[in-house]
């Protein structure tokens, strides 16, 4: 009876070192008295995201000759599958390479999103938990953790962590020492590779199966526990809203001041008054959230404020693993349009300038090409710091006037929809269209107003809420607003009688 050929498929993304890993495995096997073969389609990982490297090994002892090795992994006949990213691990399951009778699946559980997932205007990310659960169910043995994080900490490529995990999983008949010898023999970045290897090894021995830690990183002002406003929230609003309102109030205090935060609560209250616990305050929660975001929208003053805050400097340092007292510079890329400048001015002046083509041209010339500002240097910091302090003028500004009108009209609209709770909720969500900067914001506003104008066609229809949702999705479907135009046209075609 002859031994079985051990089959190992490596599904790696570009930059993760899949080729190096395959070489390491083959070298270790050969050193331990095995025949080894590798096949691959290299160069492809770099440009197309992922490729499979395939290794087969067979013991020399007692073999009359080298066996006939296959050139590619076979579904249902793969002993070890190594993936450098979770979706690639999942893809291996989908291809049938991972089967419960024999496959050990080792994968990093971090995600690197595909172009398709990234381009979506909604949250196009696929569900990692589903992929993870499928991996658990499909594999005989499953080891997974965030190896990208480990490799960043160790300063080694991901392949070294995978190699350590493979060794620790003890599915190949070689001792830890044999694997480590291969790394040493390579002679490149040995210390870092061994660090990553060791962590991988330990996690595999412990049988780790985990998704990446969800980052607990707050970039928002903390809730104002124990203040007057916090007390007011508790007095005026049901308990289901308290957490959210604390966050909202804190943000608006930082944005403009306590009076502005109180105005927020006043604006919200009529909506909450018509809502009930039986409905879980779904509408109130959504309106509270969107109202806070729009009232604290990112105008020039807000952006300057955020860019110069302590928490911002801290998050730049922590995200990029910078040494606290190291030397580094932060350069901002700011490109305001004339509109943003006019928004800052007192409403009467701003309005006149906004209507003047000459002012547009002049400001356009002035602001053309954008600015690069080094916030880490005094000059750049002071510039933004001073702009942030202009917030005292904000209540009188054109921008604030425009926003205020939008918000009040939105709230009026919602109050008029007490007969159709679902429609009110869908209409509330239309405000999510108004976001971003520059032309994105402009398009969002146009879409919002176009849908609001079409609402009169829908009110009273049983499926009005779904239709509003469909219009909102159409608004996000393309960049030139054509999908929304078509959807609204179709709507007025199909519902003319009611409109009349």
């Amino acid at each position: 009876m002859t031994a079985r050929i051990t089959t190992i498929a490596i599904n790696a993304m570009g930059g993760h070192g899949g080729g190096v890993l395959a070489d390491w495995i083959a070298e270790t096997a050969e050193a331990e008295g095995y025949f080894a073969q590798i096949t691959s389609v290299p160069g492809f990982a770099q440009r197309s995201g992922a490729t499979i490297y395939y290794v087969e090994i067979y013991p020399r002892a007692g073999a009359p000759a080298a066996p006939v090795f296959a050139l590619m992994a076979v579904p249902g006949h793969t002993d070890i599958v190594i993936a450098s990213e979770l979706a690639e691990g999942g893809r291996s399951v989908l291809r049938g390479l991972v089967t419960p009778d024999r496959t050990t699946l080792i994968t990093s559980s971090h995600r690197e999103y595909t172009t398709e997932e990234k381009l979506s205007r909604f949250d196009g990310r696929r569900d990692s938990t589903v992929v993870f659960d499928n991996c658990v169910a499909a594999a005989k043995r499953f080891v997974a953790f965030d190896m990208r994080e480990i490799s960043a900490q160790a300063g080694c490529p991901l392949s070294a962590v995978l190699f350590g995990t493979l060794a620790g999983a003890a599915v190949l008949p070689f001792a830890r020492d044999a694997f480590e010898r291969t790394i040493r023999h390579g002679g490149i970045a040995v210390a870092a590779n061994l660090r990553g290897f060791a962590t991988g090894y330990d996690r595999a021995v412990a049988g780790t199966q985990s998704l990446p830690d969800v980052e607990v990183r707050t970039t928002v002002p903390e809730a104002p526990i124990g203040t007057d406003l916090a007390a007011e929230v508790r007095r005026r609003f049901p308990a289901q809203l308290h957490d959210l309102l604390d966050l909202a109030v804190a943000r608006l205090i930082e944005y403009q001041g306590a009076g502005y935060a109180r105005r927020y609560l006043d604006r919200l209250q009529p909506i909450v008054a018509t809502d009930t616990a039986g409905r879980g305050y779904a509408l109130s929660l959504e309106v509270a959230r969107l109202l806070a975001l729009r009232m604290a929208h990112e105008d020039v003053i807000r952006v300057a404020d955020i860019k110069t805050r302590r928490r911002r400097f801290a998050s730049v340092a922590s995200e990029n693993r910078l040494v606290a007292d190291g030397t580094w510079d932060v350069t901002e890329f700011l490109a305001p349009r004339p509109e943003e400048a006019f928004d800052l001015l007192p409403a009467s002046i701003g309005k006149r300038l906004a209507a003047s083509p000459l002012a547009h041209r002049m400001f356009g010339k002035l602001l053309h090409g954008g600015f690069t500002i080094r916030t880490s240097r005094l000059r750049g910091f002071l510039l933004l710091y001073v702009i942030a302090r202009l917030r005292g003028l904000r209540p009188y500004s054109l921008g604030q006037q425009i926003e205020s009108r939008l918000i009040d009209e939105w709230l009026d609209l919602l109050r008029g929809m007490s007969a159709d709770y679902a429609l009110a909720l869908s209409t509330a969500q239309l405000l999510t269209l108004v976001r971003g900067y520059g032309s994105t914001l402009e398009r969002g506003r146009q879409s919002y107003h176009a849908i609001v104008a079409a609402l009169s066609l829908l009110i009273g229809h049983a499926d009005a809420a779904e239709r509003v949702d469909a219009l909102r999705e159409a608004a996000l479907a393309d960049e030139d607003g054509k999908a929304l135009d078509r959807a609204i046209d179709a709507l007025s075609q199909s519902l003319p009688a009611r409109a009349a």
Partner: protein
Amino acid sequence: MAERSFTKEIDKLRLGSGEEFNGEGILAVTKALLESGVSYVGGYQGAPISHLLDVLSDARDILADTGIEFVASSSEAAAAAMLGVSATYPLRGAVAWKSTVGTNVASDALANLASTGVTGGALIILGEDYGEGSSIMQERTHAFAMKSQVWLLDPRPNLPSIVKAVKTGFELSEASRTPVMLTLRIRACHLYGRFTCGDNVRPAMTMREAMEETRDFGAEGYTGPPHTLRHEQEKIHSRFPAALDFIRREKLNEIFDGPDDDLGIIVQGGMYNNLIRALTQLDLCDVFGASRIPIYVLNVTYPLCNDEVEDFCRGKRSVLVVEEGQPEFIEEAVRAILHKSALATTVMGKGELPRAGEYSVEVIRNALAVFAAGKRPNASRDVIRVDAAVGTTPAGAAGLAQNIAPRSPSLCTGCPERPVFTAMKMLRQELGHFHVSGDIGCNGFVLLPPFGLGQGTFGYGLSAASASALPGVPGKRSISVMGDGGFWHNGLSSGVVNAIYNKSDNVILVVDNDYSAATGGQDIPSTRATNIARSTKHDIGDAVRGVGVNWVREVTSYDIEEVKGALRDALTTEETGLKVVIATSECMLNRQRREKQVVKKKLSAGQRVVRQKFGVDAETCTGDRSCMRLSGCPSLGLRDNPDPLKREPVVHVEESCVGCGHCGEVAHAAVLCPSFYRLDIVTNECPSERWRARLRRSVIGFLQRRIEPIEANAS
């Protein structure tokens, strides 16, 4: 400078008789060439044979020692034509390229060479890029072998067989006075294995000696009537039988007998390993290849030896032809042979096996399960059981397929072509639709998301030619995108000169990244680096001006505004005639490879190094992802929104960022958003620099503290 350096591998090329070589298939081929006494080698790069050319260009010393001439051909046609010296002289020559695309380009020269015939052995090494992961259209080299009547070797995919095929290929070529093609599938080229070496052999005649001898072929070599008519007779009546004699005599094809000899399998050599694995999984074979069913391995897939086929099939009830690719030339030939010899053996092939697509182990196994249904010793054991489970949902989990997004190819992180395409996308938003003609190479990704510009690609360097029927008018001109590789390959003549001659009013955009990047970063005539073996630094602008282009703009790829401006001018100017925009910046892969070494040296010497990286402020990012739709950089990732009031994921710049600056450029050019920032991280800074940074930080900290504590208690 190619993507990979082969300094370690070059030592392996010096191994002598009895020593063991370990490495990639394509490098084993290179070693086999040296052991075959080859006089000259050439070719055009392209996966999967790029490494053959890369290693040879790194192996200058060895080539000089053995007196071998190495030419980095400017196209496959140039490479094939180079074999012409073997027509007259007893020189062994080998060339390599990617098939079938390269064979298409080479087929003019190939047809002439095949007609004239050769004196010295002429070997054409073809990297077959067929099947999963292929980057080209799916066609067969077999058709070229048949139409030009050159012989096609398809050896079993293990290093000893491949090396043997190279050596016997030269002998076959000389014995039959015909060029020989050796085809290697992509996984065979990149197959790591071992073989026992022979000594390197000096060529029997060097190129210099041939120059001194100077023979004339004379009228014999003229490929025109009446000589071509005579060549045809010679091909059929003399070279063809000579080839068959050699193939039979030297037993180039192999027969592996087995006990169940009422059946038989005829297989292309290259498919042998997958066949054996399929048989093994059906318990019809052991891991060493001892099959119960006899196997006839065609290491030469064209021409077939009729008598060998007859002998193999005689007495068999049925044979299965395992022939990858379509149409099924071998299967049809086998049928014809059996018909002529009146054998009753049934022929199976396409039908049992799929008509199209790669023949993976499972595909072959499924066909064998039917073909050899009665032969399986453990037929009751359901070996294929797992196939039924593949794609179905394991217990306790669901929805896997919906949660795995496809991964389409994309430009590398930091690629200088990205800003060029971003500029084009922005220009479309500004000027409305214009026709974009795509080309082969990395620039072909202009067709893919997030750019989605272009009508397709119709050949290497052929973008401008494929748009040449479109009349250009100011404001409605076409842009033909062409890489620098495609430009030198044939774009200059079939694109630029063709357009000039036909008074075209369209635009050609040459994306110049300094190398033939898609094939592994090889040098080309316009490479700016010095290459001691080649003449580089030939300016693309000079070349197009030299053939009569008056309107030429040279811009920096990374400068979106500049690229946009030049293309806008080209599309809208009143000036008639061809417009050429050349967007130049070095391929980021090559640049990184070079700079990494410099930085490493500086760091270890304690010198000051500045590293640039980009980042996104999660707090100002509104998650609308306009940046991604204009850029598509792989280092732009997504994170959960850290703001509990927001739902949309925010953009995050991953560790893989190389600091090319594209996202900052996009933010400015598209007036996008203020979220991108650039970090300049200084290592080994001088003491005063560190001191100033600390001072700045404490002043800034003081100003920040002035604001934040006050506001916390504001209410």
